């Protein structure tokens, strides 16, 4: 895990180096042809409208506000902190929406705070699903709401998942009842570049903006393998082969570097007070340039080990960093390489052989990666599995323990909390129970790695957002009203 963090630093330095080269390298010839020897005119100090500024990569602002909360102490539970600790008879104290203290039974608790007796219960950080299509492929799954794949071009880096999310997807409610507090919503994998992901707080909301995780970086969904070449090959377009895929990635990065250089030139001139026309904003290239700058994280759907190795070489060729391989079903074959490169692998434990590129999926994938010191994430890509990521992590942990690895719950819980948080660039904000982090946590009926465990209470930023025993805290989406069962799913 430490290796992963230090490697990330090294690569972002590399990315800086590249953008510097691109700027100086392109300066010369352009100037000689421009010719006039008079001093450059002073630029007007008028800032660009936000919509025309090629670096306005923040999107529409988050309007998320934490729900009401009060200082609360959880007492007596077995606490998995996702920092490697399992605390028996522990205390978790939260106030102001943050974790204030975590420790043993002797942890001091201020007077006049709410106390929740959690004896016999387990507490973990809120579950984080790093690969979800909730909202973009919502329930019910009808064509009219099938908004996850802009399958019209192999490169749709210009689209943003947040503009497809339907906040009334009942799947958000089911995921919350399974302890999921944070989700990365990704575009689908029909394209080489599917578009931007969005990170959401799993709170019921009327707008996507009200779910957007404040200050979370964006991800770029990329896809290796069978899907893009099948989708476009089937239309007699490129890519139709694996080599066509790789051409598509490389061409796009060359275009993106050129675009980044134009904006860098413009900014440099502007800074020097010279007159300069801003380049035309291009939403596709802007997202790709954001990756080259290290601001947008690459979330790369890639099943096969050999294709992962190719993607690593492409990243090196153009000076960006791959943050995580998703559906990385063969990562166990190159675990030392992934550990060295500091790239996370997000995987299922139990799915295998549902398509050719998933044929070599094994339940010990996560465990072998873990044994090699590589970063492991258990993800869902599925509105059913997301409700029980704790159990999927248990299957992965058990596969390792069948090999005699002795993987503890304190370790395995990271696969669905701290590690996805890091891989989504929000590891400093959530994902573990440490003072100062968001009070996103789950009170489980028992050991969360048991098939019988249920999330009893779920908190986001210290606020109770789901309570299995209290109907007032079992939100239903508008869609569920007036339907059979009235959305009463538990």
């Amino acid at each position: 895990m430490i290796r992963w963090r230090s490697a990330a630093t090294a690569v972002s330095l590399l990315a800086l180096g590249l953008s510097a080269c691109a700027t100086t390298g392109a300066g010369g010839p352009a100037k000689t042809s421009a010719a006039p020897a008079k001093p450059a005119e002073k630029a007007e100090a008028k800032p660009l409208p936000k919509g025309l500024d090629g670096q306005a990569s923040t999107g529409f602002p988050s309007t998320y506000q934490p729900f009401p909360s009060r200082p609360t102490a959880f007492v007596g539970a077995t606490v998995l902190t996702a920092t490697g600790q399992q605390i028996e008879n522990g205390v978790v104290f939260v106030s102001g929406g943050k974790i204030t203290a975590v420790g043993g039974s002797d942890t001091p608790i201020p007077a006049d705070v709410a106390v929740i007796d959690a004896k016999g219960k387990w507490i973990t950080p809120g579950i984080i699903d790093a690969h979800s299509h909730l909202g973009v492929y919502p329930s019910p799954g009808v064509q009219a709401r099938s908004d996850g794949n802009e399958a019209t071009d192999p490169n749709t880096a210009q689209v943003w998942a947040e503009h497809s999310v339907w906040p009334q997807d009942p799947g958000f409610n089911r995921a919350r009842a399974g302890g999921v507090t944070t989700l990365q919503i990704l575009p689908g994998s029909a394209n080489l570049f599917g578009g931007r992901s969005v990170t959401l707080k799993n709170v019921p909301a009327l707008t996507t903006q009200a779910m957007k995780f404040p200050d979370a970086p964006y991800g770029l969904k990329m896809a290796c393998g069978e899907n893009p070449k099948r989708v476009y090959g089937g239309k007699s377009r490129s890519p139709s082969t694996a080599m066509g895929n790789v051409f598509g990635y490389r061409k796009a990065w060359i275009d993106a570097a050129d675009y980044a250089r134009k904006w860098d030139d413009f900014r440099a001139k502007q800074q020097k007070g010279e007159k300069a026309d801003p380049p035309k904003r291009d939403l596709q290239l802007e997202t790709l340039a954001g990756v080259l700058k290290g601001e947008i994280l690459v979330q790369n759907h890639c099943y096969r080990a050999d294709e992962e190795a190719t993607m690593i070489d492409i990243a090196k060729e153009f000076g960006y960093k791959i943050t995580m391989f998703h559906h990385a079903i063969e990562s166990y074959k190159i675990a030392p390489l992934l550990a060295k490169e500091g790239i996370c692998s997000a995987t299922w434990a139990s799915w295998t052989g549902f398509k050719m590129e998933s044929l070599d999926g094994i339940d010990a994938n996560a465990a072998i990666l873990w044994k090699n010191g590589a970063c492991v994430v258990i993800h869902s890509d599925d509105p059913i599995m997301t409700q029980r990521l704790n159990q999927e992590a248990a299957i992965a942990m058990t596969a390792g323990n069948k090999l005699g690895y002795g993987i503890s719950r304190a370790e395995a819980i990271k696969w669905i909390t701290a590690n996805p948080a890091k891989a989504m660039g929000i590891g400093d904000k959530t994902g573990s129970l440490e003072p100062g982090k968001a009070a996103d946590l789950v009170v489980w009926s028992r050991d969360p790695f048991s098939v019988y465990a249920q999330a009893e209470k779920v908190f986001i930023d210290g606020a109770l957002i789901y309570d299995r025993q209290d109907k007032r805290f079992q939100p239903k989406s508008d869609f569920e009203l007036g339907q059979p069962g009235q959305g009463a799913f538990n």
Partner: protein
Amino acid sequence: MTRSLLLASAACALALPLALPATAQTVAIVNARIEPVSSAAIPSGTLVIKDGKIAALGPNVAIPAGATVIDAKGGVVTPGLVASSSNLSASEIGGVRETRDDGTGSALSAAFDISYSVNPASPMIGLARDGGVTSSAVVPVLSGTGGGASEHADDGVVEEMTAGKDGAGDPPLFGGQAAFIRLKAGSPDIVEAAKLAVTVSLGESGARAAGGSRGADLVLIRSALEDARAFASRRAAFEQGATRDFGLSRLDLAALIPVVQGKTPLLIRVSRAADIRQALKLAAEEKIKIILEGVEEGWMVAAEIAKAGVPVIVDPQADLPDSFEALGSRLDNAARLNAAGVSVAINGARDFNNLRQERLNAGLAVANGLPYAAGLASVTLTPAKIWGQDGKIGSLDVGKVADVVVWNGDPLETTSWPLNVFVGGVEQPKDSRQTQLRDRYATTDASGYPPAYR
């Protein structure tokens, strides 16, 4: 130390495929919690396997002379798990059409016979057995409809993931005939029984097979049953071309004869409560036997299903309103159906070669209110009864065939796994393609040669 152990286990795994299971031996499993399913659990006891059958079980059973003794060390012994509806051995890789033999194209309808699709050498059989599954109903799906309730629609190309070579166009009305296999390693023929049921779908999938709506679907199904009756009674006339035209081919009509005679059940895939009522009405009026699969809104009509004595096969994970015919999906569907007196079998995830999920699904149903005993039965005796195999398997009773699993803990729990799997009294190999991949990459060596040499 760990490493050398791993190398040793890898060596064992490599040796196993050569050592195919020999003849049945006498085995005594001692120091086990025994879950016969047909009767109360024995907290600590012995189970004896002899001549391929269960010879004795109880708290104080003598170990026969010469028996191989397996110390379960407090683990659990159960009947081998029965997959209640899967495509095991008839489908290999969901997205690779050449490996999909679990559905018919347009050539056949009810006559499609999945028993001819069974490949005893399918590597997915070892994987299933590694999850404690010792037998499975192999049940066709309608072509063009994929396998289960929730498709993996990530790439938006769902129609690629279909059964049958001819995925285009509307599926035929009937899916075909189901079979039953037992997962005997090294056996040239694992089909235990064929032509066990004919499948059909109501609701959205069924409507697709009938030009678009439910009204057409049920009219066509009823008409097909009527045709089958007429065909059965006027066969000679049919051969001479002296009957009216029938809606289905000769082969399809012939496959429906045992259904209309009430000998073979119609397996009906259905979700919505109203469609379930139609299925029950169909069975009553046509005097046919039925099995219901899916049944997401079954809890809303549980009393009616119980009254009709119709068994169901459900997926307890199905709690999303993921279609307009499953808006009432609930996690406690299995528990409510069981409480109403319905015979409930639980299945795994047929789309991902993930039959391990079956026992975890039973655990999930237990977590949502299904009594533990019913949970265990839902993956053993109940599916065995549904498929008419309970005279041989499904519970641990003296005289039954010894399909037996020794677990290191609760068989419905995530953290448990099978230690020994017996099919017909023969201990099965512990390896599968997946364990061989695992062992290849879990080990390292300094030979300088790539893993292909391991």
